């Protein structure tokens, strides 16, 4: 199905390792729990229209982003941590090709995890909403799930890029998690006008998450902005860390 041999080699790594399969289980479970929680606090968000609140339940599918982000970071920095980067560069001395193959392969792995997570969210949310006698679906739900799948996949790409830029695994993980779990949220709450332009804001726009405060960009613009962030990080990696000596 996939012809490019470097991408296929990355997929062999993904299958042979244990992190990918583990995260592929943890991510959908987490999403299902978030969707359940959102369905339980449904009435507490009274100032939003009911349709928005239903969509917010399904938007929990984007909570898988943490796991695809981690997966992307691990995929790239693991090569440096275990010194397998030497083998990788001996086979493929054109280093930018390695990063491109990783973006494609781990983007595909991220997409798979995103799809499973969206299905888990859909199942969990629909059941709980139905049990509580609330409206189960709105016309906007398919788009919300699609957006969540796209943004979750995009975070895998961002993770690969960050891992290429920051070769130390622990530092890369800490930076990625602090930045995307807290940093952007803090900045957004301090300066709401700035929030929509941050990676998190772009991802939220892409995933169609309705916020109570601070308007987001349209989904397509959020997607483009997020892609620009990924491109910028990968470009920085190519200019700074990727060309360094492997000793």
């Amino acid at each position, binding site marked *: 199905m996939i012809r490019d041999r470097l991408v*296929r*080699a990355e997929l062999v*790594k993904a299958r042979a390792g244990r992190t990918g399969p583990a995260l592929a289980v943890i991510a959908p479970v987490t999403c299902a729990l978030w969707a359940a929680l959102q369905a339980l606090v449904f009435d507490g968000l009274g100032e939003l229209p009911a349709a928005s609140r239903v969509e917010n339940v399904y938007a929990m599918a984007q909570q898988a982003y943490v796991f695809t982000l981690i997966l992307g970071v691990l995929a790239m920095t693991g090569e440096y941590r275990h*010194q397998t980067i030497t083998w990788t560069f*001996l086979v493929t001395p054109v280093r930018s090709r390695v990063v491109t193959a990783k973006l494609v392969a781990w983007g595909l792995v991220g997409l798979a995890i995103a799809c499973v997570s969206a299905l888990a969210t859909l199942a969990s949310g629909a059941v709980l909403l139905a049990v509580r006698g609330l409206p189960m679906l709105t016309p906007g739900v398919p788009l919300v799930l699609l957006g969540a799948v796209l943004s979750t996949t995009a975070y895998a790409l961002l993770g690969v890029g960050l891992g290429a830029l920051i070769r130390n695994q622990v530092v890369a993980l800490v930076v990625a998690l602090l930045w995307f779990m807290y940093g952007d949220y803090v900045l957004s709450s301090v300066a709401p006008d700035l929030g929509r332009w941050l990676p998190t804001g772009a991802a939220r726009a892409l995933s169609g998450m309705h916020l109570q405060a601070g308007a987001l960009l349209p989904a397509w613009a959020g997607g483009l902005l997020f892609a620009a962030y990924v491109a910028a990080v990968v470009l920085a990696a190519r200019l700074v860390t990727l060309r360094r*000596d492997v000793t």
Partner: protein
Amino acid sequence: MLPTMTAITVTDLSKSFGAVRAVDQVSFTVEPGTVTAFLGPNGAGKTTTLRMILGLVTPTSGTALIGRTPYNRLANPITKVGAVLEATAFHPGLSARAHLEVLRTAAGLDPARVNLVLEQVDLTQAADRRIGGFSLGMRQRLAIASALLGDPEVLILDEPSNGLDPRGISWLRGFLRAHAHEGRAVLVSTHVLAEIERIANRALIISAGRLVRQAQLTPDSTDLEHLYMEATS
């Protein structure tokens, strides 16, 4: 690459790390059908030189060619050059077979190569065990298997006998000798002079980044230790 062509050509190769001149204007060639010993004290620049030949370290100046092409511009480099490097490791969670399968897939080689090289280094029995549980000697064998995967004309080895037991060392000696007899080139860095003088045709001695001695060797008759002491004193 034709076997008659010079296998490795290093010309005025230099590398500085900050103010330290790690490799200084080193030039030599490695010919097919020979085992060339690359000798020198720790920190003399052996590893840096080998990594520059393999495109892992960028030279400050000078060139290193495999045949007529720099490593980084070879179309499918592991089919031309096999490398066993120090400080090269494996993902502990993968099996030996999975590690080789990753390299094989990335290089687009025949699937049968994996079993073949596992057999060549006598790792068939351990092929499906996780590398995390491997001894140093087994890892070294796996590194050699990885280097052989592309059936290369040129082998570059950095301290390959590290961690090998006497049987392994004996095997490696026979293996390198056979490899050279097939008309292939071997460049091997080592500290074990008594071992390498049994198979090497040529010695390159590097000290403080400079190539201080090149000598033809007659296997089993040259006093390599004497030569080394003289060159590095």
